């Protein structure tokens, strides 16, 4: 792994005596490559390396018998700090219903995660309503309804209605009439550069005032994760992130990218297609995964 690579690199350098700052800088190139290979965004890698450089060229590394392992320890600790640090609990409304709005690119896993959240939060004592706001994708409403049926959780939809903010608004009202304390809104996948569709989300936000805007990000996203997270955050102000498909073997560096660039917490990870495959995010596990 990275530890061994660093040890080897530093051994070569150390052959000529005491390790210098310059030697450490060279070793940090290995760290840079490892993070890039894990899909962490280039700029985020740069910022991260310069942030840890101070520690890396300090006594704890230079005086260590295993400087390579020491660097890995620092990298791991700093990654955990970067990935975590904020509470990743969902904000619940003081006056129900709590409204969760799921947004993100096409195919990220929003509809499936909507079902998973409904199941999880019902287990925690909530009385959820799912709202189908994807009016574009063929059979999107049926997809959410199928999940709802499986869970025995109702799905609100207005077939034929193309005003998405109106569907969201009526969905929330319906929840309130039924005494439901949680509304989970599934939206259509969209490009962050699609002005009309980004405006649609702003309209939905205005109409229902979500307590959580959750950006759903595919765990295998590459460098583009930064653009996407930035755009959604600028447009809506996201409250949290859900990284999906982490049951795959992707290193998941996009998690670091989106967290670093938005400062918003990663709240959950999707680890499978079944409706129980949702886990709370653990920064230390993610850090180990990114480092491979």
């Amino acid at each position, binding site marked *: 792994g990275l530890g061994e690579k660093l040890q080897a690199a530093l051994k070569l350098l150390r052959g000529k005596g005491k390790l210098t700052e310059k030697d450490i800088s060279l070793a940090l190139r290995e760290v840079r490559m490892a993070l890039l290979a894990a899909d962490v965004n280039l700029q985020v890698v740069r910022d991260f390396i310069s942030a840890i450089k101070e520690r890396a060229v300090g006594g704890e590394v230079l005086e260590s018998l295993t400087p390579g392992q020491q660097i890995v320890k620092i990298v791991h600790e700093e990654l955990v700090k970067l990935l975590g640090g904020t509470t990743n609990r969902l904000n619940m409304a003081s006056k129900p219903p709590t409204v969760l709005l799921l947004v993100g690119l096409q195919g990220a896993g929003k509809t499936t995660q909507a079902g998973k959240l409904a199941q999880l939060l019902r287990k925690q004592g909530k009385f959820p309503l799912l709202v189908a706001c994807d009016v574009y994708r063929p059979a999107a409403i049926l997809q959410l309804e199928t999940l709802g049926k499986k869970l025995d959780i109702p799905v609100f939809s207005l077939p034929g209605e193309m005003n998405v903010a109106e569907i969201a608004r009526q969905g929330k009202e319906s929840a309130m009439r039924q005494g439901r304390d949680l509304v989970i809104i599934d939206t259509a996948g969209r490009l962050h550069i699609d002005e009309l569709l980004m405006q649609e989300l702003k309209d939905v936000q205005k109409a229902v005032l979500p307590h959580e805007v959750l950006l759903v990000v595919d765990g295998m996203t590459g460098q583009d994760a930064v653009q996407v997270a930035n755009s959604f955050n600028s447009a809506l102000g996201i409250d949290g992130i859900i990284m999906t498909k982490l049951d795959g073997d992707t290193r998941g560096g996009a998690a670091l990218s989106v967290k670093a660039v938005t400062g918003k917490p990663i709240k959950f990870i999707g680890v499978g*297609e079944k409706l129980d495959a949702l886990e709370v995010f653990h920064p230390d596990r993610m850090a180990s995964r990114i480092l491979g």
Partner: protein
Amino acid sequence: VITGRKFDDSLYEELEELLLLHDVGVEATAYLIAELKKQVKERKIATSDELRHLLQEIAGKTLGSKQPLRYQEDTLNVYLVVGVNGVGKTTTIGKLAERFKKGGSKVMVAAGDTFRAAASSQLQIWATRAGVALVSHADGADPAAVVFDALHAARSRHIDLLIIDTAGRLHNKSNLMQELGKIKRIIDREAPNALQEILLVIDATTGQNALVQAQEFAQIVPVSGIVLTKLDGTAKGGIVLAIAKEQKIPIKLIGIGEKLADLRDFDPQEFAAALFA
């Protein structure tokens, strides 16, 4: 910003960053930059404009020549569409059905995803829009049974092109990958004379994992072409350079939107140009 000025090493760094930002990956980027430096010497490249052009040329060469979808008249053609979850398989099949139907072929699609909620309903809508036949079973049916029925229906109805949709599957799930192998064997057995294309669909927003996807899917079935989708976003899909170099699988098609018409043949020159635009 690259202009007609003379260049120094910092320009190589600039270009290296550009490649990395476009998901070309550490190894393929190192290869391209090394190749660039080598050819700069050989060809006495002097200005930054020439340098940029040379890198574009090297990238284009790495991607290989334009390789269209294989299609043969007077026989059954079978396209098997595979890939991980959510990359655009079902939508791409709608687009392919549209293209070939408009081209005068008799097209049929098979709803081989019997697992995911509303998967066959989704394909049904695309089939209706494209005006092509659909073979599907009830949700939860054995995908192998759908494929078997579709192959026989295609033969008896003298279909020119059968496109088979499959469920999204992560390549590290061995039971799902084995299921794919089984589907391929059914095609071989039930339509031994059919021309086959096995299309791996890759999402342009995917990073280095796309290379692993190409490697792993190619181990299970003979992937004959890649469809790179969602190029209408901001991701450039540079990982295909690594795939072309390592796996030698041709990129055949690109997806540039969510509508029936949003499918184009892959042009290596255009793609290389877009990378450095």
